[in-house]
């Protein structure tokens, strides 16, 4: 029995090793915050090249700038993960061929029937221009009367200086299409390094791609988390050792905490299809809350008593379990997964601390210093503190502001944000991307045309490709027109006017050829960031529109504005959180009523006061984000235990010591996150620190 704790850990590790093929850990953070539908649409957008674009700006329009553009373009073209590089407006060879092949259908055609006299008049004007005009006028022997006119489609988003793409008035612009999938961190990092090594040679050059955030932020995140984890571990071990002064107890405690994490991780990662790595990390931190049970047992010498169960710890555990049990059903993947993890890790820790530790032969706690009298100093009544809490909550409600922007939780990469803003500010494009879908390639083009007519300004494949109906109408119009007669008129008139014999013998023969309405390869328009993608069932393409709201009224259009998606899902998240949070509070209230009865107000203050103080401080200095709310849940979990311990304690001095030490360990586990530069972690640290201070105030001043 002496080594049972270690044995359990070994068994768990063995099970983990055997189940290693069934463990599913997801690293897709997006799936934690955006809805499933949004994630799917963003995945399609990634297939269509959205977010794979990289922009490089070269300052100024000087000769030197132009030289730099050429040099950078050449270097970029040699990189492995680059699809294409564009620095001029010159259409690609594929697009030029497309225009040539489909010219009769793509060009506008004046189907007006001309008389002999009209033809001769026009040819006479042409002849005169050849002999007398200052400007050279070329004659198109295939279309001398200019019945066809083709306006080449220009990009709706690209500005230009001469033939070169420009970023507003800032300088020249180089557009680069990469083939880096968002999940391939290694390739993204390699390309990032290669691009940085190219651009740093050219002064005044700025590069930006959405995947730069992934590369730079994850590096910052990693180093930040690393030193915080080290700091937290050192502080925790130090506190445990100094407090417990019992090396065996320290080792057994650490083994139990570690076993709890392995136990919960095994359940979570095998039962969930894609348990997220972030939930895993938070869940592991949350396991540290279970140290409360040990400290309470230890400072009350529970292990030496004959009692099988400490009612206070049991009530505390069951109440916390109920709270996380309810939260595990919340439709917010992050909180549901963390709560699920906590259910298992806290349960394991409770069972081991309660039923295994008494058999480990741990020395009992002997107080080395005298504990201050509980009744010393001035105290405030529980009722007063309850009202203070209500006042603080009312104040918070009055100043309450939500920060719905999930990106604000990330590492605030100021230099990259300023680079992104440089491109946004100078591009001055008012068009936003939407996804258009259809069951077939043909109907996709039709839908894109419907969208084109529904909004006042758009840019999509419909700007290049005709829909079937229009194409057939044009084909029929060409078929019906009498080009043979027109050619006869031209040949007669041209001789009369003075043109060379047979010069127009092939006029309009190109329009008489059989025209076929088939769709071209839609991916040739990638230089305009336009393409089509199929998942085997449906076809998708991106369109740029000036009014996404209006576009979205069409059933086949989805807005893929990431911010809008997050805003929508965050609003839903907050609603769910408030609903489930209220339910949890009601359950806690009922359970507290059962466990502490008359001292309900006293116990409730351990939940309400830390909540109220944290909310009041947070709302005074800024907006509340999802991580603040998540941390408030942890605070509730801690508060429940302390409330029950303090309300039912017959040895308050011992309970106070246990709570103080527990607060210290909670601060070491979560509070140190306040030093993080990542807003998400800093938010957790902030709430837990304020919460710990609030609980400390309570144990000191509440009577």
């Amino acid at each position, binding site marked *: 029995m002496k080594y049972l704790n270690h044995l359990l850990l070994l068994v768990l590790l063995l099970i983990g090793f055997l189940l290693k093929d069934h463990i599913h850990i997801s690293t897709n953070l997006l799936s934690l915050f955006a809805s499933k539908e949004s994630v799917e649409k963003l995945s399609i957008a990634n297939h269509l090249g959205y977010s794979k674009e990289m922009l490089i700006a070269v300052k100024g329009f000087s000769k030197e700038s132009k*030289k730099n553009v050429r040099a950078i373009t050449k270097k970029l073209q040699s990189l492995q993960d680059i699809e294409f590089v564009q620095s001029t407006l010159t259409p690609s060879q594929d697009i030029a061929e497309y225009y040539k092949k489909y010219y009769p259908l793509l060009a506008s055609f004046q189907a007006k029937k001309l008389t002999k006299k009209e033809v001769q008049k026009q040819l006479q004007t042409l002849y005169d221009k*050849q*002999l007398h005009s*200052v400007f*050279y006028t070329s*004659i198109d022997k295939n279309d001398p009367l200019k019945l066809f006119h083709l306006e080449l489609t220009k990009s709706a988003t690209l500005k230009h200086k001469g033939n070169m793409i420009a970023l507003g008035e800032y300088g020249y612009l180089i557009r680069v299409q990469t083939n880096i999938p968002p999940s391939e961190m290694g390739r993204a990092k390699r390309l990032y390094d290669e691009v940085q090594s190219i651009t740093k040679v050219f002064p005044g050059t700025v590069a930006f791609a959405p995947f730069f955030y992934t590369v730079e932020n994850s590096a910052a995140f990693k180093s930040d988390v690393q030193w915080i984890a080290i700091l937290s571990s050192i502080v925790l071990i130090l506190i445990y050792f100094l407090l417990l002064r019992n090396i065996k107890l320290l080792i057994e405690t650490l083994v139990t905490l570690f076993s709890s994490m392995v136990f919960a991780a095994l359940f979570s990662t095998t039962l969930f299809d894609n348990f997220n790595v972030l939930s895993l990390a938070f869940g592991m931190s949350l396991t540290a809350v279970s140290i409360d049970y040990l400290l309470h047992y230890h400072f009350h010498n529970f292990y030496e008593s004959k009692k099988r169960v400490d009612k206070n710890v049991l009530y505390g555990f069951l109440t916390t379990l109920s709270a996380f049990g309810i939260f595990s059903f919340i439709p917010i993947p992050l909180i549901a997964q963390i709560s699920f993890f906590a259910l298992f890790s806290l349960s394991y820790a409770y069972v081991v601390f309660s039923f295994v530790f008494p058999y480990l032969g741990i020395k009992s706690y002997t107080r080395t210093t005298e504990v201050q009298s509980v009744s010393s100093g001035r105290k405030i009544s529980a009722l007063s503190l309850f009202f203070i809490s209500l006042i603080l909550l009312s104040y918070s409600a009055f100043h309450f502001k939500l920060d719905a922007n999930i990106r604000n939780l990330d590492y605030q990469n100021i230099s990259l944000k300023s680079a992104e803003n440089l491109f946004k500010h100078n591009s001055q494009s008012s068009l936003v991307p939407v996804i258009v879908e259809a069951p077939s390639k043909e109907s996709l083009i039709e839908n894109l045309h419907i969208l084109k007519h529904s909004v006042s300004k758009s840019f999509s494949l419909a700007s290049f490709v005709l829909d079937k109906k229009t194409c057939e109408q044009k084909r029929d119009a060409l078929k019906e027109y009498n080009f043979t007669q027109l050619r006869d008129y031209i040949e007669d008139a041209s001789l009369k006017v*003075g*043109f*060379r014999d047979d010069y127009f013998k092939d006029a309009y023969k190109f329009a008489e050829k059989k025209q076929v309405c088939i769709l071209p390869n839609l991916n040739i328009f990638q230089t305009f960031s336009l393409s089509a993608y199929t998942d085997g069932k449906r076809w998708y393409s991106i369109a740029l529109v000036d009014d996404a709201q209006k576009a979205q009224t069409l059933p086949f259009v989805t807005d893929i504005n990431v911010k809008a998606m997050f805003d929508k899902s965050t609003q839903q998240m907050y609603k769910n959180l408030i609903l489930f949070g209220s339910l949890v509070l009601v359950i806690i209230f009922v359970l507290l009523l059962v466990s502490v009865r008359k001292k309900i107000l006293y116990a409730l203050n351990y939940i309400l006061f830390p909540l109220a103080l944290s909310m009041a401080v947070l709302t005074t200095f800024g907006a509340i984000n999802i991580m603040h709310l998540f941390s408030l849940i942890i605070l509730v979990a801690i508060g429940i235990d302390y409330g029950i311990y303090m309300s039912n304690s017959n040895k308050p001095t011992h309970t106070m010591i246990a709570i103080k030490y527990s607060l210290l360990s909670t601060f070491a586990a979560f509070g140190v996150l306040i030093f993080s530069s990542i807003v998400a972690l800093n938010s957790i640290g902030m709430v837990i620190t304020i919460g710990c201070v609030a609980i400390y105030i309570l144990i000191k001043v509440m009577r």
Partner: protein
Amino acid sequence: MLKAFFLFFLFLNVLYAQSYSFTEVRYSDAIGKSMQLNGEITFKKEGLEIKYPKSQRVLNYDGEEISFFEDKKLIELPEEQISNMMHYFDILKLLHDGNEDELKSRFTIKELDGKTFLSPTGALKYYIEHIELLKINNTLKYIKLFLKNNDTITINITNEIS
């Protein structure tokens, strides 16, 4: 329109000169005849000016806009013609600045019997077959532009004005 494009070659070879007299011989394959124009071209800090003294016609490009005057009266040109000319004038200006890299990026250049042959590689290849330059003693003598429709335009440099 295309005239503006090839006139810049004058300046490539005589960098410090500003104004030139030139004779332009334009052969039209459609009518099997040639026409000749005499003019002067001045390269300014921003843009250029082409004068046809005989017909009192002046073409002015200030780097932003093109104005065409006939008998000192401003004549409005079709938008399509203006944008095409601007496109070529921009190239002209850049090449006047001595940007050989740009020239190489747009043409394949060959030397044969003292003549230089430029074949366009980009979109220009749909309109221009090739360009021929002749230099004698480092002085440009003529430029011949061979167009896809069999028309040719020859610019003979007569003298430098200033």
